[in-house]
């Protein structure tokens, strides 16, 4: 899946992403300011959660409610090594069978299974973004 979209199309893109996803673990790659958190906001809403989605850069993980499951929203931007991820229990979350959405997942790549959905976001122009789903 490869789409170019503008900010007002983000909700439609989120829905399309959910129907194309082959895993409940989603890895979001892309530079700062590309709109990862913005797309995840729409994604959480499309999954049916009414919770407010904010940036987990400091908290590392935010949790949102669905009827019978949780969404764990990670941002690993500020962690320095895999050890720190082990320290807060990243494996427990990855093995949880809940939705796990991760921004800046580079640092934990060595412990990922390879079955996760990979989403690459890039800037096409100031108002357009490109999404590539693997």
């Amino acid at each position: 899946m490869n789409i170019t979209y503008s900010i007002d199309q983000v909700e439609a893109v989120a829905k399309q992403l959910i129907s194309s996803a082959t895993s409940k673990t989603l890895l979001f790659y892309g530079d700062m300011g590309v709109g990862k958190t913005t797309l995840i906001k729409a994604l959480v809403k499309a999954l049916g959660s009414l919770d407010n989605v904010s940036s987990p850069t400091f908290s590392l993980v935010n949790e949102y409610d669905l009827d019978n499951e949780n969404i764990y929203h990670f941002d690993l931007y500020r962690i320095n090594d895999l050890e720190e991820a082990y320290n807060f229990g990243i494996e427990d979350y990855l093995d949880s069978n809940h939705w796990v959405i991760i921004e800046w997942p580079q640092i934990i790549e060595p412990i990922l299974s390879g079955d996760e959905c990979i989403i690459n976001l890039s800037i096409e122009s100031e108002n357009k973004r490109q999404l590539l789903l693997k």
Partner: protein
Amino acid sequence: MKEQNIYILGIESSCDDTAASVIHNGKILSNVVATQKIHEAFGGVVPELASRAHQQNIVPVVHQALKKANISKEQLHAIAFTRGPGLMGSLLVGTSFAKSLAYGLDIPLIDVNHMQAHILAHFIDEDGFKKPPFPFLAMTISGGHTQIVRVDSYFKMTVIGETIDDAVGEAFDKSGKILGLGYPAGPEIDRRAKLGNPKAFKFTKPKVDGLNFSFSGFKTAVLYFIQREVKANPNFIAENLNDICASIQYTIIGILIDKLKLATKETGITHIAIGGGVSANSGIRQALKDGEQKFDWTTYVPKFEFTTDNAAMIAIVGYLKYLEGDFALQDVVASARLKI
């Protein structure tokens, strides 16, 4: 509760740091954050019984807090701990430890909401620091939080505004990252802002209704601005760094002050208490002072060590709850998403 000398141990493990503090009535006797030195004082790093940092830190940090306070654990009246919000794995360590210690000593256990604690840190007895009268507005500004809370009494609090995306500390840190400064960049931006012209560059303030905040768009605006300018002049950042920092800080503080003005207008409350790491920013402190002159505000900023994540604020809430006899049972569980 007629007892005169109450000693309470507070334990904080919601995020990165493991911390412990002992309070005697309202006065802090010790306020300790885990560091390598604590392990040395305890006799070397506690062996790798567990992989998680909090598990390695908690015993030495509590030991150190009691030692600095010069009391034994048998003198404690209660154990207070952070129940949430925070990282589940981190919270579990503090919760389990607090439960076991309270059970072992046969004293009350007190659960504390980390966000309430940031606000109630203003009630720690500290020479030279005044306490806000009820009702007051509390603004918590840090790397993880941006919130305005109406506080009617110790435990009657209502969130009236919060960020819908990034926290204010994140706006500082990520702007700094764009400029090539280290992370976290808040203190460096503050330092340079004092040397620059705050009106050199203009950034649009995000338009968010009511008392909520948004900083995600601001970060992107800084990014595009820098990219555009660097394209025209590769030395743009180096040549204008102080002015850029001053302009960024000026805009962010403007956003915070605008919302505070609106909050005081809507509530009629003019006592404003600030907490969280960003309260150390010299620009925000000056803007609050100006607010005292211009808008007749009375503002309160606690001692810095009580504004960042710390255990003293957990201990003071423990003390206030102890006076009310508000205790937790042994079946209390950590809650990653605890709200005010």
